[in-house]
């Protein structure tokens, strides 16, 4: 078959020949370029070629201009779209042995002529092969993209590698190559070469094989990836990938790992062969993703792997949970006396894995799974697990439990009620006992978490698929009443029956003189209890408060301030910071009554002027009081600790407090007579303990009777400083809302309506400066510049993101925005920060206007620091205060 190629461009064109060597273009010389039809037998004689036309091969030749006999370049044009014309004068391609070449023409015409030749040759070659092998439509439509590879042998791996490499550069060719690889079962044909090359110890070929396999996988063809994890080829594929040319002196041991090290454990035989196969495939996909390809995966292939894994998991779980026979057998392990202990243990771990996978699935599927599990006795399994000797089983048990609470807290609470009515020990108590007795610190931490989550009233509020209501909106809008009542009931039961048990170790501190010699487990228990208290203070409005104050737990926590363990001191401090942060009358009065500010001030004095963490945390505590201008506390401090405070001069916080106290005593007496009276009375009561408690109880009663609708926003009537909030307020909005400009306000700021009144009357002038808020919601801004930034990410997440559009971890870069929906705080403190971020959109004053970005706060922060009630010492300065005023 003769090539009917148009006449080759025989006019010599002046050209420079370049070769890529070590990433540099090496100049091979200058010469004259022509296209030739060349016969194998003779490079010279076109006549011979004419005679044996079938052997004609299109070549590009460049003769040196200095030495006429020397060829600078002699290359065959192959059927390959790796040739590129760049700009007007450049042709670039990759030689079959992998070298990148370039021709740089003196004249654009010369370049065009040679390029035309190349294009013609290629379309010819392709149409021939297309006619031979692919009779389908696309051969006619896009002949240029149908890629063919020769049958693999050790001898032609170089060529194959080059062909695949060049085919990888265009989408059409990739598609075509993918089809070819599948239809020709190309991967299976490669595998025998592995053994041959290994026998020959031909590292070169092994590396080529590896390159070929990598490129095939990175074609990102779902069918290919599904194919490579099948039993027939998986070992060959990972075997080939063991010889990575990027690590020439290393050989991975994937085959050995997959065949020997990794173990498929079958707690109960899975009979469906299809499902069993899927389990293996999924494991292998995982292994490919994490190990074999970890370094080289590009984003599209990564997501193909992920979605394959995901859909397999859905299938597997769907099958298991609907297979009653299987479930019966699984759960019967735990009833049977015959089953081996290891089998039971594995049973728990298996269930843990199911639940953990289920988290990725859609809500209804999960619900089904849990309800089937529960029907078969999941709770008994949890009981079994929580009491197991092996810490890993206890962890698994807690894990399952937490997953269930997270999925459907109402379900869990209903279950606990049933336990109570059946006179069984409720799960809550089991958890409490575990927490108190657990020695493994990891399990202890996890159980503490579980208790908090179980008692988190906001867990009942979630509706799958809807945007989660921010704390603030859920406070402002009436909740679902049923869920509310149920949650309330649950909390009531907890506080009636269990809370005392939980906090018993704290209560018992009352009799303890010294905190020296606590064991590690005890210290960790105390810090978990105090963290839990913080959580209750924030989340359980009145019930928590009543319990805490009745048990006088704040005084017990204050004892911990004396602990030699500094981190325990910090935990205790955090508790008081949380109480003060709420600016809640009752906590403040309680702390004043029991003189709990004293020990905190004591820490400042002990640690100053050493500028350590404890010291900073204490300073922050008093800074907050100063900044928020909490008059009751300021007056109390001034009256009781003036002398100590005067001694603390290395920061101005305390002198400012004294000053503020003096001002308050001078000026506010008439206008806030009630409050002053109260604080004085409390002060007096502080000395006469028992009457004080009684007094408190009366106040609590009154509060409980009147605050049904305000559970979450207690606004005691008798406090004039609270007067400015709400719609009935004479001042329609806060003059200055300090909340948003507070950099480290970790305590609950979620009740903006409570604090409007704290602004001093000297502030209104600041209102005008409403421009330029640094606290404007980030979503109003499109990303600006910083292209090099590794951590930038696009806008707000979409609802579907989790379920299907799982993106690569490396790809979805750091973006805090999508983390904002977190619900609970890890330790005490940060949960409320979340609230802060949401507050802007839903504050009582209506939605704020969208802001522009370009703001210049620097001027304000630097120049504005002397005016306003905040005083120059405020961390925030007044710039923040102004900026926040956004109505």
């Amino acid at each position, binding site marked *: 078959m003769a090539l009917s190629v148009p006449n080759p461009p025989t006019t010599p064109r002046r050209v420079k020949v370049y070769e890529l060597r070590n990433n540099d273009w090496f100049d091979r010389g200058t010469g004259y370029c022509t296209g030739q039809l060349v016969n194998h037998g003779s490079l010279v004689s076109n006549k011979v070629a004419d005679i044996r036309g079938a052997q004609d091969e299109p070549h590009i030749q460049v003769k040196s201009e200095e030495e006429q006999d020397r060829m600078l370049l002699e290359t065959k044009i192959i059927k390959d779209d790796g040739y590129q014309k760049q700009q007007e004068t450049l042709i670039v391609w990759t030689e079959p042995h992998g070298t990148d070449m370039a021709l740089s023409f003196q004249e654009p015409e010369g370049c065009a002529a040679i390029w035309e030749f190349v294009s013609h040759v290629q379309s010819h070659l392709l149409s021939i092969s297309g006619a031979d092998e692919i009779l389908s439509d696309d051969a006619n439509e896009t002949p240029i993209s149908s890629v063919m590879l020769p049958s693999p042998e050790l001898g032609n791996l170089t060529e194959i590698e080059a062909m695949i490499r060049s085919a990888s550069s265009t989408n059409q060719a990739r598609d075509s190559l993918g089809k070819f690889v599948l239809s020709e079962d190309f991967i299976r044909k490669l595998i025998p070469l592995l053994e041959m090359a290994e026998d020959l110890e031909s590292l070169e070929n092994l590396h080529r094989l590896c390159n070929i396999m990598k490129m095939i996988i990175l074609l990102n063809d779902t069918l290919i990836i599904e194919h490579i994890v099948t039993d027939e080829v998986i070992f060959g594929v990972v075997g080939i990938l063991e010889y990575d040319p990027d690590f020439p002196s290393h050989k991975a041991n994937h085959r050995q790992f997959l065949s020997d090290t990794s173990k498929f454990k079958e707690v109960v035989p899975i009979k469906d062969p299809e499902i069993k196969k899927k389990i293996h495939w999924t*494991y292998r996909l995982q292994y490919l993703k994490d190990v074999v390809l970890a370094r080289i995966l590009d984003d599209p292939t990564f997501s193909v792997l992920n979605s394959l*894994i995901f859909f397999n998991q859905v299938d597997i779980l769907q099958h298991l949970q609907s297979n009653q026979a299987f479930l019966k057998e699984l759960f019967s392990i735990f009833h049977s006396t015959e089953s081996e202990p290891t089998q039971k243990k594995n049973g728990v771990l298996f269930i843990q894995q199911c639940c953990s996978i289920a988290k990725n699935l859609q809500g209804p599927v999960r619900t089904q799974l849990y309800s089937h599990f529960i029907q078969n006795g999941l709770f008994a399994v949890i009981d079994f697990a929580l009491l197991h000797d092996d810490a890993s089983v206890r962890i698994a048990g807690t894990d399952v439990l937490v997953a269930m609470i997270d999925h459907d807290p109402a379900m869990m609470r209903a279950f606990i009620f049933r336990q109570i009515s059946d006179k069984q020990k409720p799960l809550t108590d089991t958890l409490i006992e575990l927490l108190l007795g657990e020695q493994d610190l990891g399990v202890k931490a996890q159980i503490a978490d579980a208790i908090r989550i179980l008692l988190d009233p906001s867990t009942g509020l979630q509706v799958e698929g809807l945007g989660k209501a921010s704390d603030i909106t859920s406070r402002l809008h009436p909740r679902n009443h049923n869920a509310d009542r149920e949650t309330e009931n649950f909390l009531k039961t907890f506080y009636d029956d269990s809370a005392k048990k939980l906090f018993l170790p704290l209560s018992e501190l009352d009799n303890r003189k010294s905190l020296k010699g606590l064991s590690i487990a005890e210290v960790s228990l105390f810090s978990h209890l105090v963290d839990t208290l913080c959580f209750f203070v924030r989340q359980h409005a009145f019930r928590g408060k009543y319990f805490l104050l009745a048990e006088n737990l704040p005084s017990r926590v204050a004892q911990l301030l004396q602990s030699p363990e500094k981190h325990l001191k910090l935990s205790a401090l955090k508790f008081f910071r949380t109480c003060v942060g709420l600016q809640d009358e009752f906590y403040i009065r309680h702390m004043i009554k029991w003189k709990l500010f004293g020990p905190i001030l004591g820490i400042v004095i002990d640690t100053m002027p050493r500028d350590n963490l404890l010291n900073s945390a204490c300073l922050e505590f008093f800074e907050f009081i100063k900044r928020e201008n909490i008059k009751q506390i300021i007056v109390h401090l001034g009256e009781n600790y003036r002398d100590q405070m005067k001694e603390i001069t290395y920061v101005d916080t305390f002198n400012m407090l004294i000053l503020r106290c003096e001002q308050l005593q001078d000026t506010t007496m008439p206008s806030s007579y009630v409050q002053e009276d109260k604080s004085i009375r409390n002060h007096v009561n502080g000395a006469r303990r028992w009457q004080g408690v009684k007094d408190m109880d009366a106040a609590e009663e009154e509060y409980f009777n009147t605050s049904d609708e305000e559970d979450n926003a207690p606004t005691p009537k008798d406090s004039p400083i609270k007067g400015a909030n709400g719609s009935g307020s004479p001042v329609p909005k806060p003059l200055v809302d300090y909340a948003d400009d507070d950099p480290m306000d970790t305590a609950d700021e979620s009740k903006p309506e409570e604090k409007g009144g704290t602004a001093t009357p000297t502030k209104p002038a600041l209102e005008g400066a409403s421009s330029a808020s*640094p606290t404007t919601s980030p979503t109003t*801004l499109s990303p600006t510049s910083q292209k090099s930034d590794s951590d930038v990410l696009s806008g707000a997440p979409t609802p579907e993101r989790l379920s299907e559009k799982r993106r690569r971890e490396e790809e979805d870069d750091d973006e805090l925005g999508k983390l904002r929906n*977190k619900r609970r705080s890890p330790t005490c403190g940060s949960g409320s920060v979340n609230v802060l971020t949401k507050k802007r959109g839903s504050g009582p004053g209506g939605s704020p206007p969208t802001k522009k970005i370009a703001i210049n706060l620097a001027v304000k922060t630097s120049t504005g620091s002397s005016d306003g009630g905040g005083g120059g010492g405020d961390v925030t300065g007044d710039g923040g205060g102004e900026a926040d005023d956004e109505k």
Partner: protein
Amino acid sequence: MSDLDHAISLLRSCKPIPEPAVRELCYKARELLIEESNVQLVDAPVTICGDIHGQFHDLMELFRVGGDVPETNYLFMGDFVDRGFYSLESFLLLLSLKVRYPDRITLIRGNHESRQITTVYGFYDECLRKYGSANVWRYCCEVFDYLALGALVVGAGSFVGDETEECEVEVVGVGGDVVTRLKRRDDGAGLMNAANPLQEGSASGGDGGTVGGPPGSGASGSSGGTKGVNNGAVLCVHGGLSPLVDSVDKIRLLDRKQEVPHEGAMCDLLWSDPDEIDGWGLSPRGAGFLFGADIVKHFNHLNNLTLIARAHQLVMEGFKEMFDSSIVTVWSAPNYCYRCGNVAAILELGEERNGSGAGAQWSATAGRGQGSGVVRRGPGRRYRVFEAAPQDSRGMPAKKPVADYFLVNITFRRRKPGVGGFSWALFRMT
């Protein structure tokens, strides 16, 4: 100490240490870190490093290039974990060195030293793979809460290089050769563009050595007399500045022991980026701010700083000075994520040579109020650029596979399963 030394030697060979040893180490570290201030004072000489991101072998390369601990003093500006495959070994090695040589190494917190971020970007997953439970992750996160938020380097010398050729900036290239020397120019122009250090160096080398600043800068004349005096301090922080922090002292008033918040001063210090803008801008990251040259210069002036060193952003050349050398980004993770193709750098600050550095004290107010006659000169800076560790020295990086499986390994975990109690609903509603 032998336990600790044993742990260090295990970690140096990139082997994880047993869970009880991690717990022990974290407790010791906690005791140590609780005594540090939010902005830790560090004496020069010190070598400042940027993000590591779990690239253990490149961390070892860093030590090879910069000198080992304790021979060299180090200051790491956070982001030890996530993304790379050896977050655990990298962080624990640094932590154990910290416990072993507390005065030789300073660790400050990056935005990745956070529970929420590590659950998404790999560290949590890695701990789970390597230990089978989240305990170790918990211990580490606990330590994160105690890390300082910044550091202040005092007593840094004005020059690098030998006595005969004193330079303000020296860049040591990948091979260990000096590729750029830049003499001090008192108009404040430093190494503006690290991409072409050679041209930059030769261009400014011509007028190097002249002492007076350009007319009208207020620097001429008097700058000659300020030799060795009041070099100012270098503030090191992971991200950058915050509109809520106008002085270094205010950082002292933060309670840092908490999860990195979503906003506020502490968040900004860890998340902000400098940018070519005026004033403040919102950050596309969704946390922290962008801040312009005016902000940096004002802040430096107010706080008697000559330089802010920060990390947080990938720089292909390893480091990048901005705003007339008033701020520099140092990036120490070469070939980031094993595929970005960038080089990395560390920044060496030497100590003051002619003795005056011994009593170097930084005071926020020292430079203020003395009028424009005082010139604060940036410290002499030597950047060492390095590449990723040679492939052969590290084996093939990969995540550790889980050997036993019932169903399938836990996959693409976007949130923790049932631990921590706070973030497992993170993504459900997004």
